[in-house]
């Protein structure tokens, strides 16, 4: 009778343990097995070890989710930087020997247009360029001052002894230029990058 009672009790304990373990399996690591410390039954020792395991698991889990959060933060930064690099970079392409092209895309603010000037002028010196094409096909809208700045940039290129052409001016920007009354007499413009390049090739062959 006592043996039967023991077995019955044992069954209950094991069922309880299975329940607890299944909640751990579902991610709830706050649960613990009931342990009777006074009892010398080997089951109690096993249960205590399981409790320790659950706690260790909880700690590991906590740490790994901290890592995951950190990693997600890093990924977010990388994503931001990728977008930034794409927008901020000022690629200067050497289309032909001595012919540089600065394609301008994206949102053009004053900080960026100033940086472009620096990069373009330096590239003209470094590559001993004779012709620079600033292609603004990718720009839809500019502030009037930025348009003015581009005209100045073209003049600065000429001071360095190179020719400069502006290409891809859209109707909206053309209107801005005219409204501002900017002097265009010494600015060379072409409809497209292709036109500018063929003009250069014809003139120098």
């Amino acid at each position, binding site marked *: 009778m006592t043996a039967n009672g023991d077995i019955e009790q044992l069954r209950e304990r094991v069922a309880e343990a299975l329940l607890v373990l299944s909640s751990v399996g579902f991610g709830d690591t706050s649960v613990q097995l009931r342990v009777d410390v006074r009892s010398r039954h080997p089951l109690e020792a096993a249960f205590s070890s399981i409790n320790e395991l659950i706690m260790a698991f909880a700690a590991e889990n906590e740490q790994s989710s901290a890592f995951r959060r950190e990693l997600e933060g890093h990924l977010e*930064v990388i994503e931001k930087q990728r977008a930034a690099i794409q927008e901020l970079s000022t690629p200067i392409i050497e289309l032909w020997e001595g012919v540089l092209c600065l394609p301008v895309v994206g949102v053009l603010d*004053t900080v960026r247009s100033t940086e472009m*000037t620096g990069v373009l002028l330096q590239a003209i010196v470094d590559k001993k360029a004779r012709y620079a094409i600033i292609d603004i096909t990718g720009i*839809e*809208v500019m*502030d009037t*001052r*930025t348009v003015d*700045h581009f005209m100045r940039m073209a003049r600065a290129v000429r001071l360095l002894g190179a020719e400069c052409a502006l290409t891809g001016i859209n109707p*909206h920007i053309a209107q801005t230029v005219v409204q501002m009354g900017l002097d265009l007499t010494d600015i060379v413009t072409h409809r497209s990058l292709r036109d500018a390049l063929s003009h250069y090739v014809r003139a120098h062959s």
Partner: protein
Amino acid sequence: MPRFVIRERLDVFEPRRLVRSAAAEVGFRHSACVELAIVVSELVSNVLKYGIAGTLEFERIEDPHSGLGVVIRATDIGPPFQNLELALKDGYDDRGPIDPGSMLRRGGFGTGLGAVLRLTDSFAVDYSIGSKTITVKRYVTRPRSTAGK
């Protein structure tokens, strides 16, 4: 209202992207959406250039007189403008004219706030202790007095 923390240059992209889509939803023409992106850019640059850090927020507004539009607020932790009128002038900051030779180093030629002024319909600065807030509004239908200024 979307609110963005500005601590470094990279922080410009998120608000700039979102202001474009928000403006499109309000009903701005495509070119006006890009102009608002430029405004956000200039305001963020300004926060970083003259303040330590700050925030930027924008939201749709509806005004009985001027109709639908967008308000943009940029707050920076920094000193007040010494001279706002000068700061708004092209080629100047709030202390005076900018030396053309320093343009590349300082990253700009003193026309950022001027651009903000041109591309918006109202411009206001509020000061509180240790910070200043620039509030600009732009309406879908620009009031006659400001359009094309």
